[in-house]
């Protein structure tokens, strides 16, 4: 049994995933100039629901399609696998505590929603520039 477990762990630990660049974006009404990993995690796990000035936070995400930025956002910025974040959201949903963040199919749709919703937060490809939203650097 022990050898079997070790073999399985070693085999799958060889698998990896590519790396991309993702930025955090917010509605311009958000006063912060940067965001820490701790705060980003607290927001995306729905633990922090208000900005420090009291504005309610609206969390947006991209859908789970293979071409989506969502897996890169989870791994690169939140330092977790998408399945770990999905599990946490589902835990809140199925225990009646909260709703999943609103999901969008394309980055353009999400950027538009972030620009139009006070207190909103989302993410975007680093190469994209958009005057309607605020790009927040993530502090380690």
């Amino acid at each position, binding site marked *: *049994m022990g050898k*079997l*477990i070790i073999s*399985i*762990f070693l*085999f*799958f*630990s060889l*698998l*990896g*995933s590519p790396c991309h660049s993702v930025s955090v974006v917010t509605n311009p009404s958000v006063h912060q100039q940067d965001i820490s990993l*701790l*705060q980003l*995690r*607290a927001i*995306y*796990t729905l*633990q*922090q*629901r*208000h*900005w*420090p000035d*009291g504005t309610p936070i609206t969390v947006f995400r991209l859908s789970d399609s293979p071409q989506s930025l969502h*897996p890169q956002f989870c*791994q690169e910025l*939140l*330092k*977790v*696998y*998408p*399945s*770990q*974040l999905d*599990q*946490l959201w*589902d*835990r809140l*949903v*199925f*225990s*009646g*505590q909260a*709703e*999943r963040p609103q999901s969008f199919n394309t980055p353009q749709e999400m950027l538009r929603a972030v620009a139009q919703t006070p207190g909103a937060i989302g993410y975007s490809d680093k190469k994209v520039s958009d005057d309607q939203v605020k790009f927040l650097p993530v502090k380690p």
Partner: protein
Amino acid sequence: MIRSSFYLLSLSLLCQASQVLATPPGNLHGFAQQSALYSDDNDFIGNSDDNIATDIRDFGLNYHQRFSDSFSFAGQIVSHEAGEQTSNNIELDYGFIEYSPLQKDNIRASARLGRVIQSYGLFNDVRDVAHLRPTVFVPYSIYYDRLRKSVFAEDGASFKLELIEPASVWTSEIGIAKPRSDKNEIRAFLPSQLLSGSGDGKNAYFFRIANESALDYRVALSGIYLSWDYQGDFVIPTGPSSSIAIPVDGSMAASSFGVSLEKTFGSFNLISEIFRPQVEYLDIVPDINPNTLQINGTQKIRSQQLAGYLHMNYACSITITCFTQYEYFKIISKDEDLTNATTRDIAAGIRIFLPYNLQFKIEVHEVNGSAWLGLDRDDAVQKWHYYASQINWTF
């Protein structure tokens, strides 16, 4: 089969309907799971001894509606089947109104009224959603699967206070309720198969104090207490077609408290819980001289137990997680002779996250002992294995 097809069809239709209905403020979600279980000895769930038991499935629908910033409703209906002992009727799993009078960036307070979820351990809140369990079943020794409905949610009220700090959230929850009196669960919980009667829920109390740093760790101290009145007969067979029925009027209780911990180290995730369950039966089993059948009053039966597990999983890739688990259960004191009082279960398995919110688990368990299987399973085999697989889906 017909019933299952009906459920699947209903769920598909509801899934389609949710596309229309899932506009703010209401949201509809659901889950389904189908498991298969084979055990080389001992019927673990259903008829699994040298047979593949497939009568293990759940279907559920979950609805959440926010009426205002302070008021919301959450409810879930479920059909649960785990062998012949369970009824697979559609039942209200939980349903409550939540009032949140205080919502600031550093403190939140709320009260729930209705059929409220009992905060207990790390997985009781979502015990019916297979997608959220790290293994095919919740650890038996801690989560009282024979009392699934009663341990999960009861009719009553609960209160929650959250203190939000930069690095973590402190949560304290307490609740008071009336335990459900499900006929099958009461029968499964009785200390003897010679008893026939019915239970009536008396009191349920629960609490949980937890600290959680999102996606990093969560630690909790929690406890639960459930009690029922019981009235019925203790029926002693005296011949092929004769018996003596002794009326009994007593009470029974189940309680448990302990600590829980989950910690993530990059791709590694560790979960451990240690609990001290106790069951107590008062004035339910008569104290009878087996030779003369003379009744010398009633017995107080109490069993104190120690239950715990250590679960480690490793995210091998974006879609595959491997896990191993060691579970331990011991009856540490008892007022009557019980056999097979210790159980050790070593398990390993793989969990695969598939497209379309599907998930597949397969695992093998090497078990030494049979203490979970029930107090009167003296025919159980000491060393045995079971193999379980599960496909589940959420939307």
